[in-house]
């Protein structure tokens, strides 16, 4: 009975979404747009979470007027404010470069959506990951696309024709060159253990035994530090340090141009946390010893587990921002090259040894 109903359901789904009729690709496009909208809502949630959690750390109340007692719609009020500001274009900026920078940052953050599975739908023992597409080199694609945003920041810094922005742009490049290496090496070590570049396979590999964070703790710490440096948050936010550089690369931006760049940073934070959850924290799986207890993972429970882990990772990232002072740029690069890079190599050797014994 159940298999027949499942077959009818799958038949309907293939008719709607498949390529047999003309409406297939269009409906897939609409679903992609909904995914993009969902990410925007998630980024709004991230901003709200940051403001509320930061105020909890600092013994104060965060936004509490717009949208009820907890200020849930505060970001909509801020967005309306940014839309209605005057669009000032300074005279001597380099036109296309200056105007294209926020668009590039926003676009590169959105490109990451298509490969990340936001949870899964498990029915009858088969896992259907909730991703827009699923292809074999997804983790490599994600890391490559997340690095395009740096070009956007450099364009903003250079095109603004402003001493402060240029210094900020140089600092950015120095930071990114240092930390992409360590990030890549830890991802490679995870791939070695799993044996596949497909992100769904990495999650499935963790589901069978135990999360990679417990197996490779050194790799997890390195990945965490490099991810925070990649996202450009304190203690690594020299590019927008307010003390000496007014607003860094964002000095000449106001109104919705600034809003796009600011939003892009938060989308990057959301998606970076998703990647951290998927690669190291088991994605939508419970740990291996719970699977042995035969708790059935049915329906949308995996997606709920993914969401809970994601919120915890984001809260940790936010707490680091408010707990530590900023590091100076020469210390940033020296940490990246002198400390993280050798440790990442050590982790690679360790992962190779684990990969020989991993039951996959």
């Amino acid at each position, binding site marked *: 009975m159940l298999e027949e109903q499942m077959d009818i359901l799958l038949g309907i789904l293939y008719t709607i979404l498949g390529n047999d009729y003309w409406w297939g690709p269009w409906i897939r496009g609409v679903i992609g747009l909904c995914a993009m909208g969902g990410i925007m809502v998630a980024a709004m949630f991230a901003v709200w979470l940051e403001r509320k959690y930061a105020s909890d750390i600092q*013994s104060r109340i965060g936004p509490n007027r717009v949208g009820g007692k907890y200020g849930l719609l505060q970001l909509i009020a801020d967005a309306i404010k940014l839309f209605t500001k005057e669009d000032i274009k300074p005279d001597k900026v380099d036109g296309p470069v200056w105007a294209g920078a926020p668009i590039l940052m926003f676009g590169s953050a959105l490109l990451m959506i298509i490969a990340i599975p936001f949870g899964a739908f498990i029915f009858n023992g088969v896992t259907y990951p909730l991703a827009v597409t699923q292809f074999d080199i997804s983790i490599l694609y994600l890391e490559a696309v997340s690095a395009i945003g740096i070009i956007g920041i450099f364009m903003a810094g250079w095109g603004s024709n402003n001493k402060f922005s240029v210094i900020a742009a140089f600092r950015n490049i120095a930071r990114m060159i240092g930390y992409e290496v360590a990030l890549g090496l830890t991802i490679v070590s995870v791939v070695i253990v799993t044996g596949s570049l497909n992100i769904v396979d990495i999650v499935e590999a963790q589901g069978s035994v135990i999360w990679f964070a417990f197996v490779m703790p050194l790799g997890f710490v390195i990945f965490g530090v490099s991810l925070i440096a990649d996202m450009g948050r304190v203690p690594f936010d020299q590019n927008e340090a*307010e003390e000496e550089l007014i607003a860094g690369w964002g000095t000449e931006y106001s109104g919705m141009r600034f809003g796009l760049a600011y939003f892009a940073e938060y989308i990057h934070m959301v998606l970076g946390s998703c990647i951290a959850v998927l690669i190291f924290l088991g994605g939508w799986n419970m740990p291996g010893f719970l699977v042995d207890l035969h708790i059935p993972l049915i329906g949308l429970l995996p997606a709920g587990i993914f969401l809970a882990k994601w919120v915890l990772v984001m809260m940790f990232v936010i707490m680091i921002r408010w707990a*530590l*002072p900023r590091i100076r740029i020469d210390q940033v690069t020296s940490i990246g090259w002198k400390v993280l890079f050798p440790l990442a190599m050590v982790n690679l050797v360790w992962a190779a040894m684990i990969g020989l014994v991993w039951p996959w």
Partner: protein
Amino acid sequence: MVNKHDVKKRMRQLAAEYIHEPQQEAYKLDDTEMMLHIGPQNPIQPGPFLIDLKISGETVRDSKLYMGYGHKGIEKILESMTYIQGLPVTDRICYLASLSNNEAYVSSVERLLDIEPPERSQYIRVIMQELSRIQSHLLGTGEYATDLGFVTMFLFMIREREYVLGLIEDITGARITHCFPRFGGVREDLPDGWREKAIDVLSMINEKCEMYKELFSSDRTYRMRTVDIGTLTKEDVIKAGLTGPALRATGIDYDVRKVYPTLTYPDIDFKVQTAKKGDIFNRVMVRINEIQESCWIIEQALDQMKPGPLFPDELPYGRRTPSMRVPPGEAYVPVEDPRGEMAMYIVSDGTDKPYRVKIRGPAFALMQGLPPMLENVYIADVPAIAASMDSCNSEVDR
């Protein structure tokens, strides 16, 4: 008295020698250098001043300091007000340390008038000075923490400062510009029940200072930014004329409360806080230690105080004493401001308004001490060094 014609001749000479800025030696740039203006308007500054930095890459090669954007002419204003009317004006020289400014003014005028406040008033003035020191150090260290990127520390210190401001408001009636001491005494006595409340608040601040010291000294990212940066040697501080925590952090134990003791400081037992090396880390530690020492001083003063009159017998009207004719003479009584040695040199000519009031503010020397420290540091160190000196722009430019 100075000859007017000599002054004019000297000014003409200086004007002829002045080289316009772009041709000055310090402003000539190589191919690798860039001029950065941390300018009069900047989000981090407490007030407007200008530092021109010549940077090459990220290292500072040379720097030049311009002050005076906030000049209000306070010394000239004080010449046209009577002595009692000038008291609220001295509040506003530096609004953070306004009780110390009041104290410097009132002590100098009392020395000209040759009266001495009775013992209870002296103890109350000592308590107010130390409370003012606590709240000024809390805010100064908090602002310094924001310049490092450590915003949460600022909010913690502001939270404690609110309790101290509540204590001060219970006595004086205002939070920042107090106008509290009077010539010969203080405006009002301590209210009932203040003593128990103060002891609670002070013990809480003592605990929190321990927490701050641990947070600052155990954090490795913080130590990377502050240890061995912005070091001042003993010769540098004496040449620049610095006083206060910046001087004591290098090891010289000069504290006006011990060297020129006024009020009842000789009866109170306290230690001068020093450190061995004058870098940013030690300056901030000296300030936090001073907060704890001030809590101890206030507790001793509260124990030693006895009931008594607030004004001496030769002033029968107490705080209602009208504007008086002060006998001619000059007086200079230094006071330990939270930033250093503060004094007002008052010259009176027998009328009811002063002839000249010269304010010796400690913040001016703190700003002067900046350019020698900014040799071969990184740009990111400049705001950290400037904020750790804790200078107040409205006192520099009075």
